[in-house]
């Protein structure tokens, strides 16, 4: 289909199925049950984050997975995309498409400049350069470019860039008829509008913003498969494998790496633009180095250099971040109620550090376990399981052969 081989087409349809049926798949427990409260993830806000961070990591994987260049400042492009989109909402109108396009263009330009400078070095020095530049962007957005008192207030500093009633919005309205801020929309379809379906005890929510993001994620995923399978993708893998051989084979490696850097920067800008489209508010914390680190973690969790890894990594990270932070002491007490009181209290006291505000700890441990036992990420885990079943099948076949 569309220039993909059979295996990739299947992979694409699996991801498409998961994305389009997510409101069902992520709501396995009936509404109102205690399990639903804890483990259901089928609400718009979280589903949007799944696919948007999916886009971000898919793009990051084109750079890191194929060329091996570890950018430690990718969140800068996410932030730049977010700010660009909000400016589009403030100045032009509330349609998300122009905002997303601007986000991609601006972050692409920044990626070209930052990449041109950073790619003078490779390895750890490249990572440090990208980290330093991203932190500069963060600090500028946080302070210099965001002073509300100055005439040149690009980012609105600490508060973050948000819509206001006196924005121009030349192609839209500054204020709605009832005096409120207009909402982001896709040619009239409001991002926040949802259709809810009641089936038995279950409640499924279909959100416009989610489906727009999911479709854009699928397009991004398709583009990334095409890049992986193109001669260009092969050149990028060759860069990772042996740059010396490339140079002596008549290939100039730098434009290849720069192109990969710009493409992944555009992906990040697209993700930023989508984040702002779902909620038109952009803050500097999106560019912080911890956000960049999270991108790296998501990519490694899923499986670097694999097609589906980024999607899995982003989903895994966002899902566990969400449920772990929802668990509080009260929930723990409920779960451990079967234990004798003393032990229960001790257990809760212990587990307290791993949930709620302590979610970082659990996620960190999970990350360590994956790195140590599954260096290829969740994809490697899946492959090992598949191999186990595959081997069983093979051994059955070999058993049959002598009988013939």
């Amino acid at each position: 289909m569309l220039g993909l081989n059979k295996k990739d087409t299947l992979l694409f349809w699996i991801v498409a199925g998961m994305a389009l049926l997510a409101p069902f798949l992520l709501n396995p427990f009936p509404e109102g049950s205690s399990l639903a409260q804890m483990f259901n993830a089928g609400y718009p806000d979280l589903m949007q984050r799944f696919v948007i961070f999916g886009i971000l990591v898919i793009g990051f994987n084109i750079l890191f997975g194929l060329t091996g260049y570890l950018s430690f400042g990718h969140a800068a492009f996410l932030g730049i995309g977010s700010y660009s989109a909000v400016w589009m909402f403030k100045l032009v109108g509330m349609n998300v498409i122009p905002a997303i396009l601007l986000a991609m263009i601006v972050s692409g330009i920044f990626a070209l400049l930052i990449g041109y400078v950073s790619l003078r070095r490779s390895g750890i020095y490249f990572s440090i350069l990208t980290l330093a530049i991203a932190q500069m962007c963060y600090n500028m957005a946080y302070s210099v470019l965001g002073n509300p008192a100055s005439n040149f207030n690009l980012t609105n500093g600490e508060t973050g860039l948000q819509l206001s009633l006196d924005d121009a919005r030349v192609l839209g309205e500054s204020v709605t008829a009832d005096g409120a801020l207009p909402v982001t929309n896709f040619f009239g379809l409001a991002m926040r509008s949802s259709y809810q379906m009641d089936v038995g005890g279950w409640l499924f929510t279909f959100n416009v913003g989610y489906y727009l993001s999911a479709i854009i994620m699928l397009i991004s995923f398709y583009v990334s498969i095409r890049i992986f399978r193109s001669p260009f993708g092969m050149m990028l893998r060759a860069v990772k494998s042996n740059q010396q051989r490339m140079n002596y084979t008549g290939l100039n490696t730098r434009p290849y790496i720069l192109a990969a850097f710009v493409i992944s920067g555009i992906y990040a800008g697209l993700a930023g633009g989508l984040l702002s489209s779902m909620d038109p508010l952009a803050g500097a914390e999106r560019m912080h180095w911890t956000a960049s680190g999270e991108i790296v973690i998501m990519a490694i969790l899923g499986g670097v250099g694999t097609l589906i890894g980024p999607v899995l990594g982003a989903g895994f990270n966002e899902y566990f971040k969400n449920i772990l932070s929802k668990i509080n002491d009260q929930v723990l007490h409920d779960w451990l109620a079967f234990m004798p009181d003393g032990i229960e209290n001790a257990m809760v006291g212990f587990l307290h550090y791993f949930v709620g505000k302590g979610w970082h700890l659990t996620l960190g441990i999970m990350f360590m376990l994956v790195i140590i036992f599954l260096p290829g990420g969740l994809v490697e885990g899946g492959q090992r399981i598949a191999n186990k079943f595959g081997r069983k099948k093979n051994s059955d076949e070999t058993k049959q052969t002598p009988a013939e």
Partner: protein
Amino acid sequence: MGILEVKNVGKRFGGLQALSNVELSVKENTCHAIIGPNGAGKSTLLNCFVGKLMPDTGSVMFDGQSVLGRTPYEINQMGISRVFQTPEIFGDLNVLENMMIPIFAKRDGAFRMHAFENMLDEREVVEKAEHMLEEMGMADARNDHAASMSRGNKRRLEIAMCLSQEPRLLLLDEPTAGMARADTNNTIDLLKQIKEERDITIAIIEHDMHVVFSLADRITVLAQGTPLVEDDPENIKGHPKVREAYLGETQAV
């Protein structure tokens, strides 16, 4: 006029004069060996041909054009391919992909943004790569992981990659270094076959006299950064100066 003309090349590293007054002329369609004891400056000289090092003095002309000041990829695009002392291949890619990259480089130049072209449509390149593998007797290995091959096969693949670009000059930097005897003999046979079947000029740096005398049409002996003699193999064998500087230690050959 040779295809590669080296005039008065000198190179100094701090206090060490690595090369001085190197004159060399490699005739088209011959195999020219550069030999010399350790530290004679053989590799330094080769690095001056491919853009890795910039000599302090002199000129290096390939087919009438200077190669000095050009980058390795530009020099490759001019028609010079290089085989390294330790085989440099794309270890993470499979053998067929390894073969395709130089063919793409030859066809598309130093950079092309073919991100949306489909590998399935590149029949021509795939066929050319497969043909080359067949010629080198590696067709069965096409889907093997390149890093997992033996040293001898890596060398064979590297030479195949260079040949697929149809270079006018092939530079070999100690192609049999660190190889088992059987692999060395296979490599010699392969190079002999290449020499006979193709219109190609070969410049080879080598330590192993067996390899040199089985292949070379012309030999330059380098000692302490200067060419001692340049002559045909028969004359080199018996040359007193050469014996003194170099062969004296390896009488057995």
